[in-house]
Structure formats: structure tokens, C-alpha cells
């Protein structure tokens, strides 16, 4: 996993609530047995028309918008537990998803892939989307150590929460397997207490 400290980038707005993982990556693309290539099919059915050409109304195809931060609507990542959704977002080039609410499993999957879910207030999301739409070149800054998100066009910033352990993992590029393997003795001792 890549180390994460600060990301500064322009952002792409996706002003839709309840974006489920079936939209992020439709089931018909889940037939791979490795983690590569999912970015090509990110938001497949919103991004492309039936004829396979770009849907010019979809935010990812809007030439004005670019960057490694997605600013999304409430309850992002609900539905299926498929980690392919996180792989698709990472594969496409996203490093941060900002939303006013994340579904549980998605949040965990994102963190396990070095993709930072930043949860902020609904007001702040509205502010970000307003600012980005007014000027797509504004930069968002996400500082993980300080747990703070800010936007270059205004003085408004917000702090966000993250589990201290997960934060350390993101900053150092560790994952849970390393930690769990270090607990083998405790785990085996626990097993011996089971009947």
C-alpha cells in the first residue's frame, strides 16, 4: 500500500446520493481474478452510452473537471461488499473520496487500499460542490496528519475523523495482515480456550 500524508488536487463533483457499488463497478465486470484494469470500467453505465461512446453529461467526461479527489453525495458506496469498487476508484486515479456519509463496508475497503474516505458535514459538501462548479480549477487539500480538509477558493476548512490505528496504517503504508500475523501467539492461545 502507498503511504498517504497530504493530497492537494483539483476535484471532480458527483452530486448524487446513495451511489451503490453496483454503479461504481457493475457486476458483469467482476470476472477477473486479479486487481488490475477495473479503473477502465469505473461508473461504466453512467460513463458510457449504450453505443459505447462517452456520455458527455457524466461528470467524469466533463473536460472542465479533473484530479484525484471525488466529491460525492450522501451514503456513498452502499450495497454490495465488492472491493472491486475500491480497486476501480484507485485504478482510475482517485486518492480521496469526500462525502457526508459512507457505507461501512466500502469505507473499510477504501482504507485497505490506500484510498482515503473523508467524511464532512452536508453543508461543507454543498460548499465544496458550489465552489468546484464555480471554478473547476480550485484545489482541495487533504492533510491526513492534521485530519483537515480545505479548499483554495475560500477560508473554510473542516476537520474529519479517522480511527487512530487506520490513520497510522495509511501514513505508514501498513495493512492489517502484518498486524494480525504478529498476534499469532495470542490467537492460538485463544483457540485453546474454545471447547
Amino acid at each position, binding site marked *: 500500500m502507498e503511504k498517504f500524508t497530504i493530497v492537494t488536487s483539483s476535484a471532480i463533483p458527483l452530486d448524487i446520493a446513495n451511489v451503490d457499488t453496483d454503479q461504481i463497478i457493475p457486476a458483469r465486470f467482476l*470476472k477477473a481474478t486479479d486487481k488490475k484494469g477495473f479503473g477502465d470500467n469505473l461508473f461504466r453505465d453512467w460513463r458510457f452510452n449504450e453505443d459505447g461512446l462517452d456520455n458527455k453529461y457524466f461528470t467524469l467526461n466533463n473536460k472542465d473537471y479533473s484530479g484525484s479527489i471525488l466529491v460525492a453525495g450522501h451514503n456513498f458506496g452502499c450495497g454490495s461488499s465488492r472491493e472491486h469498487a475500491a480497486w476501480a476508484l484507485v485504478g482510475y486515479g482517485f486518492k480521496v473520496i469526500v462525502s457526508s456519509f459512507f457505507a461501512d463496508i466500502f469505507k473499510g475497503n477504501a482504507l485497505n487500499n490506500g484510498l482515503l474516505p473523508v467524511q464532512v458535514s452536508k453543508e461543507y459538501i454543498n460548499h465544496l460542490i458550489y465552489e468546484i462548479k464555480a471554478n473547476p480549477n480550485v484545489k482541495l487539500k487533504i492533510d491526513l496528519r492534521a485530519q483537515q480538509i480545505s479548499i483554495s477558493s475560500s477560508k473554510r476548512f473542516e476537520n474529519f475523523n479517522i480511527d487512530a490505528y487506520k490513520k497510522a496504517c495509511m501514513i505508514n503504508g501498513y495493512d492489517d495482515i502484518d498486524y494480525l500475523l504478529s498476534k499469532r501467539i495470542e490467537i492460538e492461545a485463544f483457540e485453546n480456550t474454545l471447547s
Partner: protein
Amino acid sequence: MGKTLFDKVWDAHVVDTKENGPQVLYIDKHLIHEVTSPQAFNELEDRGIPVFRPKQIIATADHNTPTINQHLPIKDALSRNQLEQLSINCKKNNVTLYQLGHKYNGIVHVMAPELGFTQPGMTMVCGDSHTSTHGAFGTIAFGIGTSQVAQVFASQCLLLTKPKSLRVTVNGKLKNGVLPKDVILYIIAKLGTNSGTGYFCEYAGEVFDNMSMEGRMTICNMSIEMGARGGMIAPDQTTFDYVEGKEYAPKGDAFDKKVAYWRTLPTDVDAVFNKEYTFDAEDIEPMITYGTNPGMGIKISENIPHNKDASFVKSLEYMDFEAGESLINKEINYVFIGSCTNSRIEDFRVAAKYIKGKQKADNVTAWLVPGSKQVEKQIIEEGLKTVFDTAGFELRQPGCSACLAMNDDKIPQGEYCVSTSNRNFEGRQGQGSRTILASPLVAAATAIAGKIIDVTETIKTLEFA
């Protein structure tokens, strides 16, 4: 202060607690399938880590499998490859696999309980969000991502923060024709799709006490659709009777000892939940969804509500419905009875009871997909298949099928499907398809009428528990 069912099971599985951080939770049973396991096996292999406790894992092929001609080689190369990978991985790592065609093969959340692999008081995971189904046994069961599948392979544990507790109580007696599916669709419609996020939900009250294991599984299955990681129902005699004698269940004295322990699990009377909701069984009626998330449900006799919210408007646009309209008399060309929500024997009994002596409408393509080989066998043995065949329904072979349309069972662009599955997301049943979630009874009635009808009118002479 007393403990909840969830607390008791959780606390019994904590191996270690990280200061100001997550806990190491021991996982008793791990279910795997072809779609979310290959990358986890790869990860372990790349890092040279062996599977720690292969005996605590079972595997099945379900998501990507065809539902006709299962004895023939799979045509789609990618699907075939995924199943081959699963066989290779299981063999290499000594994991028991119930592969396509095996008498115990089926949808992971249908076949594991049938085998008694699911038991009360356990912790259980699977790389699949509907793992919540197994909570029907008083088990802590929840879906995980592939990275976590790898973690459980490596250590039989997960690092987790204990979720908050939520209880939904439904007292009273359900009306004729109101099935477990209606109860859960009603709860989600009332509470919304993210009301449960961060919580584990216990279902309590007379309605669940009087429900069969099949019904309880339908309820717990959809906990994830209100955002909860899982749902649970206290184990009781109904649970013990279901588990007894099953393949993986303890036998003889060992079973009795377990039952004595399982009886200690129900929530203490003085336990306190972080959040509680209470509903009346009498208020629930057959339900149906009109939008693109499972919370967008109404009583079948109601009209679609008005709402100015952009996501709501977008959803109705996708479904091609109008706010304020009724769904009664909407022509429907596809009906799907299946999925880990409603593909157990009871679901097919309900459908058959309604269908018997009637004929499927000509405009309808109706797929009946059993949840497992065992359910399929029972359908045939109980004579239900004859009822279905005579009425013009197609009984297919077990698998996830049109629930997620990874195989060839896809609903065409723009078509409506009344489906007993759990998700009505855009394109869930095939690109551009429009899903209407309902109970097996409503689905059967739709297939017969060729359109949505108010079942409460047509079942007056039949008794549906």
C-alpha cells in the same frame, strides 16, 4: 447492566484489544465463493503466507454459474476461469469446495445453513454483503471486502471496532399474505437505507418469535439494505430444531451441551440498546418497491410518494414512474423468484400454493431459481415442480442468477422485473433493467396476472402464513 445477544457473542470472540483502537475478533467460520476470493488467495501466495485454518472455511460456486445445463462446460471463458481458479485455490489450500453440480452446491447463504455450518453463537464472515443472512441463527455474521478475506485466511481474525446496537421490535400477528419479505421491506421503507450504518441490528418480538428459520433468514438477509452490517435473531427451539442433525452440526451429547450454551445467548431483559424502533404487525401489508434503492418501498395498494430531492427524481426517471401514481395494473414481462433472500423451500411452497391450478400470463417470462441443489431436490420431491411446469413457469438450476446478472440470466434493457431478490439498484439485473422488489407471493401473482395486482384481494380464500 445486562448484555445484548450481540454483546455476548462478540465478547466471547475478542482475542485482543488495541489501546484506543480496534479489537482482534476471532472468526469461527469463513465462507468463500468464486468472485471475491481469487485476489485474496493471490495476496497470500505473493506474501508466502499459508491459509491458517482451512477446516473453518467452506467454498461454493454461485455468483457466476449458469442456471441451465450445469453439467456442460461453461461457455463464457472468464466465468469458466473464475471457477477453475476457485477449484485450484481450494485444492492447494485444503479448503472444502462444493462445486457446481455437487449435491450441496448453492448460493453461499442458502447452502451453509442447510449444512449446519451456520450455528448459534458463532462469528461468521464471507466476502459478500448478504452474509448478514446467517444472523437468523443468533450468529454474528457480516460481509467483508477481499482484503479482509485475506486477513481471515492468514489469521482467522479481523481487526474491528465494535459496532453500536440497534433493536427493531415487531409485535402482533401478521395479516394473511404478509410474508417475512414484506416485514423487512416495510422496516427499510420506514427507517431508510442508511439508518443502520454503524450498527448491528437485533430483531425481536412476537413476529420473529413465530417465524420459521427460512423467514428469519429473509429478514436478516436484508439488514445490509438499511446499512446495518448485520442482523440477529435470538436462537430458540425453532433454531435448535433446524440445526439438529445437519451435516456439520454437533451430534449427541455435544449437541445438547451446545444447546445449553445457546440458551444463555438471548438479550438480557435489562440490556440497553443505542437505538430502538418498534412497529405493529397489523400495520404491515404486502410491499413493493418503486425506486432504485430498497428503501423506496410502499404498500402495494399505495401510490408513489412525492419528493423533490434530486436523487429521488433521478430514481423515478430511471424507473419511468411518476410521483403519485399507483403500480397496480402495471404490465410486467419478467418475474424472478430466487436469490439468497427468497429461494428457500418455503418461498417455492408459497409460490406453488398460489400458482396451483392457474396459468402464467403469456407476456411473462418467469424464472424460478432455487437457492441450492437441496432446495431443487425438495421442489421436485414435494411435487412443486409439476405445479410450476403445468402453469408454464421455468424451474432453473441453483445459483445467484438474475439477482446480479453476472451470468446469462439478464433482464433486458428497459424491462420491469418483479423480483424476490434484495437490490433494485440501476442495472442490477442487467444493463438498463428495472427491478421491483417483492415477496414470492406478490411475484407469483404478478406472473399469473401479467401485471401488478393487489394480492390482498386475490388470496382471500387461501391461507398464507
